[in-house]
């Protein structure tokens, strides 16, 4: 059962990613990207990462996809389609080489996997890990400053003169 779920999720994810790259219509490519984000949330659920799956849906499906679609709407390049540049063949070669290397190293390496059952639910544990003693409290504060700087930067860049 678990295997079937994984294979369905994997096939739909890869199909959606290929559609993003290959579709002529930019808007349909953006909709396929939303499908990909949803499927990745499903992959997180198969990995017992329930909190991360919800964060994925909130941030990617809810916010980033809207941002990208607004970007497509504001830049009126839809009639131009989704063309490839002069670098199409070299990019294909580089992508296939990287794919071969990554798959080869992932399959041939002897990973030291553990048989301990995973922690569930993860929300309280992640909260303790982020904010607790000896945890990630400094990176959390830096992430807050980063988000503030990014929002202010975006407003400054996009403001009418």
């Amino acid at each position, binding site marked *: 059962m678990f295997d079937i779920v994984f294979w369905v999720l994997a096939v739909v994810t890869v199909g959606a990613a290929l559609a993003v790259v290959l579709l002529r219509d930019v808007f349909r490519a953006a909709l396929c990207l939303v499908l990909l*984000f949803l499927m990745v949330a499903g992959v997180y659920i198969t990995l017992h990462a329930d909190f991360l799956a919800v964060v994925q849906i909130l941030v990617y499906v809810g916010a980033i996809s809207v941002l990208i679609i607004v970007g497509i709407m504001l830049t009126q390049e839809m009639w131009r389609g989704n063309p490839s540049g002069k670098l199409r063949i070299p990019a294909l070669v580089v992508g296939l080489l990287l794919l071969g290397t990554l*798959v080869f190293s992932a399959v041939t390496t002897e990973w030291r996997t553990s048989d301990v059952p995973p922690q569930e639910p993860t929300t309280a544990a992640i909260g303790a890990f982020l904010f607790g003693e000896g945890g990630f409290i400094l990176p959390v504060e830096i992430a807050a400053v980063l988000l503030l700087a990014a929002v202010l930067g975006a407003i400054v860049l996009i403001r009418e003169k």
Partner: protein
Amino acid sequence: MSVGLEHYLVLSAVLFSIGLYGVLAKRNAVVILMCIEIMLNAVNIALVAFSRYVVPTLLTGQVFAIFVIVVAAAEAAVGIAIIIAIYRNRESIDVAKFDLMKW
């Protein structure tokens, strides 16, 4: 063979390669941004898979994935803002025509 760590790593590698091809080959700047998001998602899948199969009780990989999502959100906001600013100035988001800083 039941699904294990290798399956997730191969899925992540396939997604990352598709995203890399899109980033290098496409001319529409918004599509390039979308392909970068695909690559970041692929990295997140690898991080969470390692967290699940190598250290199931520690959750370190999931915390890293959360920080990756934070940085991806900031990057998408700034990226879209830059693309719209360029579009206002040059009436185009074709990356082949972004040669303002070339000498």
